[in-house]
């Protein structure tokens, strides 16, 4: 079996070469019977895609195998392993098929394998860091590459003149320059693969990596110019051609960048209007980026530069526009594609090296090239750094320079370019191929293997990942503004000045144009950090609390050390207790290192565990958009709930306080969603609750809903802040609807919850009944959910703070309540039902228990879960009118329209 499949592996990835495919059709019967074939084996029809899939599969499996052993991967970069694997596979193919079947096809490489990697790196490039170091990056990319190309080419020519290269290598100076131009460029794929595992400090990384991306333009130009010179013959080259060569450098690089930016603009603009079709958002990102690549390639501009700029330029706006889910989808798809392409590239590199028919070995040339690229790279780096340091605020020290010189890895780009050479025009092509392979292998394997120990030995500053804090974010903004201001005062229009200018321009025009209004509102970096912090806290709290709180009943690890509760902001607690869960997706963003993978795994694990209780509903939601959203909300809600509960219990146990208000309130945020979900999904037909309830609720709500009549449907999203809105509107409408249409199921939601459910139930019909609504909901989901959580969190935090003050009875608690205590209480009386946990309430013991137990064990009754949320829900509705800011009003209106 294995043997049989091996030749297949040897097939070219591109379907182009299918002709030479092994004619292996194990199952095919020689001659098809005249009648109906019961079984037909059609290998040829699926051959090409099948092989591609097999290739990728093999590569992925190999990756898995490599990572089975932590030791191996920590010592040997994955790229090395893959190349070695490729060598082995290639050897087997050679042995079996008697000829080398496969090699890395330049066409495949440039059109399919390279773009994902470049897009990935451009899109996830830390843009601030990149622009902060843009000067250095450009210098190294342009000057450095030119320098490397010319010196290497010239030195090799000199070597030949000195007679150290065998005379059978027939190459002129131009040939050597051509070779120099393709061998001199640092390769983004190789650099990324190695540096990602090394974790040098950010500045160093961005310089090396940025250089490898941006030097593409130079490489392409040099290669093309030299190539055409070679083809014209050196005698025919005129002075004008040299000038054109120089000019084309600008055309290719600036043109490529321009193409990229244009597509970035288009992409951002397009995503602005995808609110109703969230599903295609990720696709758009990939399509337009790929279109940018192809367009640049078509115009023979620098395609790599185009994609890099496209990714870099669009990210901010796209991320703001697309939904949360799409963001995750984009992230993972991009990472998957990139790592897939990278894996395949390295493996194919190994395999193609086996093909000795393309080789022609000349020791002088090989050794000379190896020496020269290392030597001139180092020399170039030192010289450029010396110049750059005159202008840099933070000079690059010697250690940095060593790493930069040593990190100049060559890779698949060089290989693909050398394969592209025309043997009739470049007689020494075979020698060049062999040399390139050796150089690539040497840099990837030898340098890749040694760079980690080297970095350790030199004590290069490593990158340190610390979690962002609000303070840091805020102060960083302050610094930026201060520096910009100081530059103004000093009258020097430097980097900070222009950055400030750009930001203002961006804020005033670009963002307005490219971000949907709702997104624009929410998009603020400080707010962003705040938001993320809260989410992370919530999640890790659940994680940690799940073990600690339930088992020990209230002792967080950090507890003993604290004497005053005042400091118990959740964050602090979490931070100090050092919960192991790192749920920050950000982490996945930046690196694919082992550690991060583990984090990711942890994340998934957590998610799985946490969401479980709700999962059972999933089957019932067939609708694409809505159901998903609902699910998401539910999940989030559960988080929130659990956390709240824990917090509460924690507090109360600690202080023996009863927390009436704080508890219900946080929940309410989640509630509304839940309700909606419950309704939509609830399969269990529960008895309807009393109409009386609904009426009361309806009345209350109506008032609110009236207030908000101006809302824009377009603004739906912005309202995410308050979940309340939905509920309120829903109720009023629902009432009407429910009465009118008997078909509506008012009470899908759990029966158990008497009072509050009313609102929720009403919502239900609304949601499920109207198609439009569904759309809205889906679009909002992403944003809404988080916001809710935030709100909940804020409250919980504030409640915690309030706790800080002496342990107290109810009265104090109430006074502490966030903005809207009064509002909350008023509505109560009507709702005060046995189960209602709300305002004055002390959680009914049974309920509380149920909730707790539920949190502890995932196997609880769904109904119980819903109970609590619903109750919270009510609070929301009541609260909202009072607390209401303009946002809420708007939201309500929407509901009305619907």
């Amino acid at each position, binding site marked *: 079996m294995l043997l049989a499949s091996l030749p297949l592996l040897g097939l070219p990835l591109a379907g182009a070469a299918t002709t030479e495919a092994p004619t292996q059709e194990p199952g095919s019967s020689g001659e098809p019977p005249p009648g109906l074939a019961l079984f037909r084996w059609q290998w040829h029809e699926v051959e090409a895609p099948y092989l591609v899939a097999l290739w990728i599969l093999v590569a992925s499996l190999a990756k898995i195998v490599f990572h089975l052993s932590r030791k191996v991967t920590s010592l040997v970069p994955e790229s090395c392993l893959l190349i070695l694997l490729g060598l082995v596979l290639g050897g087997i193919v050679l042995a079996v098929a008697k000829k080398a079947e496969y090699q890395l096809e330049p066409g495949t490489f440039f059109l399919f394998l390279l773009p994902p990697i470049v897009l990935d790196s451009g899109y996830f490039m830390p843009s601030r860091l990149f622009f902060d170091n843009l000067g250095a990056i450009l210098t190294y990319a342009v000057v450095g590459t030119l320098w490397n190309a010319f010196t290497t080419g010239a030195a090799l020519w000199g070597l030949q003149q000195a007679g150290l290269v065998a005379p059978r290598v027939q190459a002129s100076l131009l040939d050597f320059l051509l070779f120099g131009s393709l061998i001199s460029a640092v390769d983004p794929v190789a650099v990324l693969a190695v540096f990602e595992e090394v974790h040098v400090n950010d500045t160093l990384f961005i310089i090396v990596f940025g250089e490898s991306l941006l030097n593409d333009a130079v490489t392409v130009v040099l290669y093309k110019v030299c190539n055409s010179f070679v083809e014209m013959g050196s005698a025919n080259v005129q002075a004008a051609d040299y000038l054109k060569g120089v000019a084309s450098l600008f055309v290719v690089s600036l043109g490529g960048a321009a193409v990229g930016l244009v597509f970035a603009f288009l992409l951002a603009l397009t995503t602005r209007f995808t609110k109703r079709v969230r599903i295609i958002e990720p696709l758009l990102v990939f399509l337009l980026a790929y279109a940018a690549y192809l367009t640049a390639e078509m115009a023979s501009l620098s395609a790599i530069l185009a994609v890099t700029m496209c990714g870099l330029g669009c990210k901010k706006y796209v991320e703001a526009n697309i939904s949360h889910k799409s963001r995750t989808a984009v992230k993972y798809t991009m990472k998957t594609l990139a790592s897939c392409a990278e894996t395949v590239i390295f493996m194919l590199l190994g395999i193609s090296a086996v093909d000795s028919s393309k080789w022609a070995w000349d020791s002088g040339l090989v050794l000379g090239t190896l020496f020269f690229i290392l030597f001139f790279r180092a020399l170039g780096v030192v010289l450029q750094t010396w110049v750059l340091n005159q202008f840099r605020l933070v000079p690059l020290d010697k250690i940095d320079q060593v790493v930069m010189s040593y990190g100049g890895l060559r890779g698949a780009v060089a290989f693909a370019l050398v394969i592209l050479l025309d043997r009739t025009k470049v007689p020494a092509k075979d020698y060049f191929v062999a040399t390139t392979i050796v150089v690539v292998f040497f840099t990837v394997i030898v340098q890749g293997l040694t760079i980690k120990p080297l970095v350790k030995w030199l004590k290069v500053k490593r990158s340190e990942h610390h979690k962002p804090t609000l303070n840091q974010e805020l102060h*960083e903004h*302050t*610094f930026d503004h201060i*520096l910009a201001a100081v530059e103004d005062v000093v009258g020097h229009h*430097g980097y900070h000045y222009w950055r400030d200018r750009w930001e203002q321009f961006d804020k005033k025009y670009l963002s307005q144009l490219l971000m949907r209004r709702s997104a624009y509102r929410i998009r603020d970096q400080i707010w962003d950090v705040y938001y993320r912090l809260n989410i992370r806290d919530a999640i890790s709290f659940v994680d940690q609390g799940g073990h600690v709180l339930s088992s020990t009943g209230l002792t967080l690890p950090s507890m003993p050390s604290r004497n005053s509760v005042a400091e118990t902001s959740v964050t602090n607690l979490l931070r100090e207790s050092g919960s192991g869960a790192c749920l920050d997706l950000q982490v996945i963003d930046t690196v694919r290192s082992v550690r991060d993978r583990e984090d990711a795994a942890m994340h998934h694990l957590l998610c799985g565990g946490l969401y479980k209780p709700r999962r059972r509903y999933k089957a019932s939601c067939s609708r694409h958009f809505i159901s998903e959203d609902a699910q998401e909300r539910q999940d989030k809600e559960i988080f929130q709930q659990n956390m709240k509960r824990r917090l509460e219990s924690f507090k109360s146990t600690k202080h023996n306080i009863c927390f009436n208000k704080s508890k219900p309130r946080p929940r309410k945020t989640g509630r509304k969603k839940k309700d909606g979900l419950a309704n939509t999904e609830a399969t269990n037909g529960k008895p309807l609750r009393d109409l009386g309830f609904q009426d009361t609720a309806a009345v209350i709500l109506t008032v609110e809903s009236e207030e908000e009549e101006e809302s824009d449907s377009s603004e739906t999203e912005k309202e995410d802040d308050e979940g309340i809105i939905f509920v309120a509107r829903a109720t009023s409408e629902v009432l009407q609807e429910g009465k009118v249409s008997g078909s509506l199921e008012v009470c899908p939601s759990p029966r158990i919850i008497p009072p509050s459910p009313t609102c929720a139930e009403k919502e239900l019909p609304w949601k499920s009944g109207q198609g439009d609504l569904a759309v809205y909901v889906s679009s909002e989901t992403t944003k809404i959910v988080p916001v809710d959580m935030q709100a909940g969190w804020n409250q919980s935090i504030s409640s915690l703070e309030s706790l800080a003050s002496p342990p107290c009875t109810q009265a104090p608690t109430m006074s502490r309540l966030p903005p809207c205590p009064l509002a909350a209480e008023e509505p109560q009386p009507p709702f005060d039902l046995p189960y209602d946990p709300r305002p004055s309430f002390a959680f009914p013991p049974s309920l509380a228990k149920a909730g707790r137990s539920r949190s502890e064990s995932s196997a609880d009754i769904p109904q119980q879960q819903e109970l609590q949320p619903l109750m919270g829900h009510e609070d929301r509705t009541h609260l909202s009118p009072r607390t209401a800011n303009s946002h809420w009003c708007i939201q309500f209106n929407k509901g009305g329209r619907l």
Partner: protein
Amino acid sequence: MWLSSKKQTKKPPNVQPETSLLRLYHRFRALDRNKKGYLSRVDLQQIGALAVNPLGERIIDSFFPDGNLRVDFPGFVRVLAHFRPVDDDDSGMRDPKQPEPLNSRMNKLRFVFQLYDLDRDGKISRHEMLQVLRLMVGVQVTEEQLESITDRTVQEADEDGDGAVSFLEFTKSLEKMDIEQKMSIRILK
């Protein structure tokens, strides 16, 4: 060098034709419209981009400590000296008895801190934090959200639980940041 020159700013600046100092002096003269020998608030406010800068007003204020209405060239330079890059050699060789140079990490931080601490009580109160955040965050965030951000920010840095951020707490919250780098401008070297 700059350090010494800064201390000697009492002398007419042209005596020490240090390039950046000279440049600052030219700038000073340019800003000083009426050739009155000092700068007033208005002079600085005329710098167009400063008006757009959310912290512009506060930075101008920092040029006029203690309610002064004018700043002379030494004062002008002294403020800007906060933004000199830190020289590595400096720190090692500095005479411990000498006061810390203005561009030390602490002084840079203190400068920032004073931008926040409007009432100069040595603490960034919740209210002060809120004001800063309001400047920085822009319109799109609602007042309520702003409040919660403020709460959290203060809480995050506040270690002794007094609901305000002292200078010590402030420096701690920025402990991991490369202040020397982030609060420096190259041309002031």
